[in-house]
């Protein structure tokens, strides 16, 4: 059974239909890359999956459990939506770290707040908080930022900020981690450090959906690639099928535009 099933997602903003029926599924531990030109609906799709945006039609099923159903979305309480949202982690193009917190606090804030909801929180408070602290330090170490625990986001490079954002997302132990162009806001020399963190997650079989313009990276890291065009999935397949033997003419044009630039 796939861990994620996305069924018939439609989304419109006013008169423009941005997603015109998106279907795909993803197995546990797999990496899915989404490529496509600007404006094709990639961000909107990720936002619908992570429920930052509410799709107009369609369903999202995680491990057999419906986490989104356009038909019932209006009847859910905020609390139910919040719990369902925790299935997914999200790494944004421009990081969105909390500027007033240092690296460690950025990673622990949500987990600490979440821990307050545990039934035995007041009884085991010290123990729970030290466990959260320990896990956060491990995560920060795993993205290579142990030196920067007490630094504030404004003191970090873009690549470092994005690595903190990844650690912060992982701290909530999402089942599926989504990335929206995680390196697009970075200087070229800083993309490598972020991509290698994502690769190491792939090696540890984190289930991930990655919207990216880094074609070589997508080819190396993905199990499955979707090519989006005008709100549809225009082509899908393994990295070999998409990058080495593209059949769809639009896909060929799209990939060609990268080759022309030597990417």
């Amino acid at each position, binding site marked *: 059974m796939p861990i994620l099933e996305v069924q018939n997602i439609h989304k419109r903003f006013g008169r423009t239909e941005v997603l015109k029926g998106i279907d795909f599924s993803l197995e546990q531990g797999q990496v899915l890359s989404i490529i496509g030109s600007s404006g094709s609906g990639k961000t909107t799709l990720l936002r619908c999956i*992570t429920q*930052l945006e509410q799709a107009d039609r369609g369903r999202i099923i995680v491990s057999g459990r419906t986490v989104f159903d356009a038909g019932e979305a209006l009847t859910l*309480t*905020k*609390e139910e939506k*919040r*719990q369902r*949202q*925790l299935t*997914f*982690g*999200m790494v*944004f193009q*421009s990081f*969105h*770290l*909390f*500027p*007033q917190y240092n690296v460690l606090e950025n990673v622990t*804030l*949500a987990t600490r*707040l*979440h821990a307050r909801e545990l039934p035995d929180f007041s009884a085991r408070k010290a123990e729970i908080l030290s466990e959260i602290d320990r896990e956060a330090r491990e995560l920060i170490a795993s993205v290579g930022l142990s030196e920067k625990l007490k630094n*504030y*986001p*404004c003191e970090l490079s873009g690549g470092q900020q994005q690595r903190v954002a990844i650690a*912060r*997302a992982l701290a*909530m132990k999402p089942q599926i981690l989504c990335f929206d162009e995680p390196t697009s806001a970075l200087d070229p020399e800083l993309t490598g450090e972020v991509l290698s963190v994502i690769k190491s997650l792939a090696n540890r079989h984190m289930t991930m959906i990655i919207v990216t313009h880094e074609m070589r990276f997508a080819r190396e890291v993905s199990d499955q690639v979707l090519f989006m065009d005008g709100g549809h999935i225009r082509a899908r397949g393994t990295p070999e099928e998409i990058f080495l033997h593209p059949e769809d003419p639009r896909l060929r044009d799209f990939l060609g535009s990268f080759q022309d630039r030597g990417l």
Partner: protein
Amino acid sequence: MSFWDVNVTLMKGLVVSVELFFLTLLFAIPLGLVICLGSMNGWRPLRFLAGRGRSGGARAVCGALGSFMPVRAVCRLVVWIIRGTPLMLQILVVYFGPGLMFHWPLLPRFTAALLTFVINYACYFSEIYRGGIQAIPRGQYEAGQVLGMTRAQTFFHVILLQLIKNVVPPMGNELITLVKDTALVRVISVYELIWMGESFIRKGFIWPLFYTGVFYLAFSGLLTLLLGWFEKKLSYFRA
């Protein structure tokens, strides 16, 4: 008449000015927030904070203001009128207006002055809050949301401090202006600092009036120090 006597008299005026200053802040700061929420209704991140499924007073306020469109029009109209007319005129209208129009008894002078100041400054504050809120990127709310924080948690743990940092410098300017604006209430004979200084003219002395300037300088100087210290406290991060 000794220097000491002048100081004692001016101190009485200063007390009235300072009282007006602090009471204005006490009421205008929260009222400004209400006007701000009203004039921003329909704005997306605010709707997010006012969303369904929340309980408590904050939700009642946000929700009621947020879902009733004429509220925005009324709030913006009031802000426009208050910011577009002289404060001195407003003081006169609040003090004399009700009596002339409806034959109501006059309000006590200080009360009328305070009421005008609260409304006037609440309007200015509301615009400052609005700027402060709109300067916070939507991504901050969304980051809280995808991390499973509740709306209240996102507001109190993520947004609020950034909002405070955004509004401290413009609020500081308004506070300094407020110190000096307290002098306007003499138009309805509230015995504030300038009035007291002027009272010496009848006795043939002009210098006590000029000397009131020292009191204003001391007051605004103290405020400047306090605000500078606070801004510095918040300078460890960049919003």
